[in-house]
């Protein structure tokens, strides 16, 4: 895991002091709320329906047990005893007081964490593959590149007042577990014919009200020009992105309106210019960062066999454990999606238990998944039963990774001032329905994602089944989408037709899955069947 040196620590400490001073000037009336707002947003502090929300960065989703315990302490000390893991691999607290914010940031800085640029019109927390460093299918661990970009983007003086927010994801395998092409910049570390590593840049993807899949604008940027190329992409956006309309201000609109070819031409011109400006970090810096992400000391000659005599345990192993590059190990997913629960929520006690288990069974390392679950990346197969037993006792052993009840949901109208409809109760009812009717067990992989408004924080465009909450004449109404995917086969879901009320949408999801169960062929997932048979049979069942 990356560890701060004196410089990193000095920067987060300076940030805490700066924010305390900004709060002081706000309270003294030297800053208006309009002037203060972008400052607090860039420290993760968001004003929601009932209180301030604080969003804490978990860079590329990686945490150690000490940090997880600190997050639990914050939940108890400053919030209501729980936190909410988000689709950007971050954690949010929903009941924060402005006067506590400086102290929380100081508590975070004490464990090498921060809330820098987790909101506002700037480069946000950089996300990555939650199985980085553990999966056999990666070329290299993508996180050193994400860390390099974290440093480059932190307090970048030119890019603190962009037209709109800016999200970057970095992966290093063919399989895409980070929705890379749905980011403002998606980077895939690749190898060229000469065997050298480089970065493929996908620019202009995104969800929101105008979902777009990012085109690849450069197939190979040499690694010693990575930061310079990113700077060129950002400068063209900062200079030419639209600022006349907030809803057209993301880079996807610029790339779309200019066309990918023209945007690319401008980036290449800027890149050629910036190459002479000496902004690339020394190569030694990437090498320094890489040393923090070296493999832990995996044991050898470990047993591969797992005692599957307990059927509940065996189901959890089949569903929630993922193949690992080291023999005798797996990555184990801790589901934060119990039946009827709030997707992504964890109590302080649960966080502490997860921290303890990470320390005992996973080399003191944890990952936050963008699907709002937690991963213990490196668990010995021999330890799985003990791990599962501890999780089961704490209500954390739902065997539902990528199943219909592993739902992504935004906070929705229960918390968010932008939302048109509630998301959480719909997620709860769907998971309860599929638990009660038993169909949840037989559906296989089915990614269901719910957003409470068009801004798409719940990634509904990318769900095999997506649900979008809208306001129809003052009544919550839910549109159903089918056929989205955030994976390497990225696609955007299509709306089935007229929306449904709250009870109706739960019925509609069940009807859609019934069509799948009736029509699926050997080995097909819901998404595969939908792609083969198209929308019509689903429409027939829903509206016929």
């Amino acid at each position: 895991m990356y560890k701060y040196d004196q410089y990193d620590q000095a920067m987060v400490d300076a940030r805490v002091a700066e924010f305390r001073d900004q709060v002081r000037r706000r309270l003294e009336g030297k800053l208006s709320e309009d002037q203060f707002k972008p400052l607090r947003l860039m420290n993760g502090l968001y004003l929601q329906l009932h209180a301030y929300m604080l969003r804490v960065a978990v860079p590329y989703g990686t945490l150690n047990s000490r940090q997880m315990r600190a997050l639990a302490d914050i939940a108890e000390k400053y919030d209501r005893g729980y936190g909410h893991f988000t689709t950007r691999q971050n954690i949010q607290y929903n009941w924060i007081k402005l006067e506590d914010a400086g102290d929380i940031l100081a508590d975070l800085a004490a464990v090498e964490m921060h809330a820098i640029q987790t909101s506002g019109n700037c480069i946000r927390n950089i996300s990555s593959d939650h199985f980085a460093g553990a999966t056999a299918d990666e070329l290299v661990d993508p996180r050193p590149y994400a860390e390099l970009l974290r440093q480059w983007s932190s307090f970048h003086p030119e890019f603190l007042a962009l037209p709109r927010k800016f999200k970057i994801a970095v992966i290093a395998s063919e399989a895409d577990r980070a929705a890379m092409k749905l980011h403002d910049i998606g980077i895939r570390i690749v190898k060229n014919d000469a065997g050298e590593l480089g970065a493929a840049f996908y620019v202009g993807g995104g969800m929101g009200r105008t979902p777009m899949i990012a085109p690849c604008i450069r197939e190979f940027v040499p690694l010693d020009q990575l930061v310079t190329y990113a700077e060129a992409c950002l400068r063209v956006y900062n200079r030419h992105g639209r600022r006349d309309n907030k809803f057209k201000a993301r880079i996807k609109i610029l790339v779309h309106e200019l066309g990918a070819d023209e945007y690319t031409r401008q980036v290449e011109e800027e890149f050629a210019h910036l190459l002479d400006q000496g902004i690339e970090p020394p190569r030694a810096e990437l090498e320094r960062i890489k040393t923090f992400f070296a493999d832990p000391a995996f044991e050898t000659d470990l047993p591969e066999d797992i005692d599957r005599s307990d059927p509940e345990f065996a189901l959890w192993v089949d569903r929630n454990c993922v193949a690992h590059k080291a023999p005798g190990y797996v990555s184990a997913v801790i589901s934060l999606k119990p039946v009827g629960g709030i997707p992504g929520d964890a109590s302080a006690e649960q966080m502490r238990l997860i921290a303890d288990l990470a320390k005992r069974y996973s080399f003191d390392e944890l990952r936050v998944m963008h699907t709002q679950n937690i991963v213990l990346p490196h668990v010995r197969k021999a330890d799985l039963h003990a791990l599962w037993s501890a999780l089961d006792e704490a209500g954390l052993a739902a065997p539902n990774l990528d199943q219909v009840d592993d739902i992504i949901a935004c906070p929705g109208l229960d918390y968010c001032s932008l939302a048109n409809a509630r998301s959480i109760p719909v997620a709860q009812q769907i998971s309860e329905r599929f638990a009660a009717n038993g169909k949840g067990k037989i559906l296989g992989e089915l990614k269901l994602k719910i957003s409470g408004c068009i801004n798409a924080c719940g990634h509904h465009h990318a769900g095999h089944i997506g649900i979008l909450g809208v306001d129809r004449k003052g009544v919550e109404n839910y549109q159903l989408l089918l056929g989205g995917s955030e994976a390497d086969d990225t696609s955007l879901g299509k709306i089935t037709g007229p929306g449904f009320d709250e009870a109706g949408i739960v019925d509609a999801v069940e009807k859609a899955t019934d069509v799948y169960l009736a029509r699926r062929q050997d080995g097909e997932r819901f998404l595969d069947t939908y792609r083969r048979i198209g929308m019509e049979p689903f429409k027939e069942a829903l509206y016929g």
Partner: protein
Amino acid sequence: MAELLRFRDDEPVDHPAVTVDAFLDQSNAAAVRIEPGDDARALIPHLDHVRLVEVNFPAFTDGRGYSAARVLREAGYAGELRAVGDVLVDQLSAMRRCGFDSFAPDRPFDPADADAAFRHWPHVYQPAADGRVPIWNLRHGTDNG
């Protein structure tokens, strides 16, 4: 009249800045003013006789002026680069890093707050137009080979 905060020793230009269009029409003016939608690169062929470039920030949330400043400094412009308009204390540090060396805010700064803003950051991560040595080079020196 806004108070001018200036980090230069030479004499300030004593006449008003002209618009970019006017400047390009009759480029004998020594002071020119860039609006957010102007292309700073249009000035590059004429920089040798420019002594003051004002970059206007009609709203502090519009960050195009930061790029304009860096574009000019990267082109070798060594004259005065002045941020004018809705320029706030909390933007000063980033503006200075992008190459601004004078500030004419609509509303005067509290001198103590402005002073603190310039001195606040012990280090910087990235190179920019202000010549500060980035953390990367403090760690490793300047050798990029």
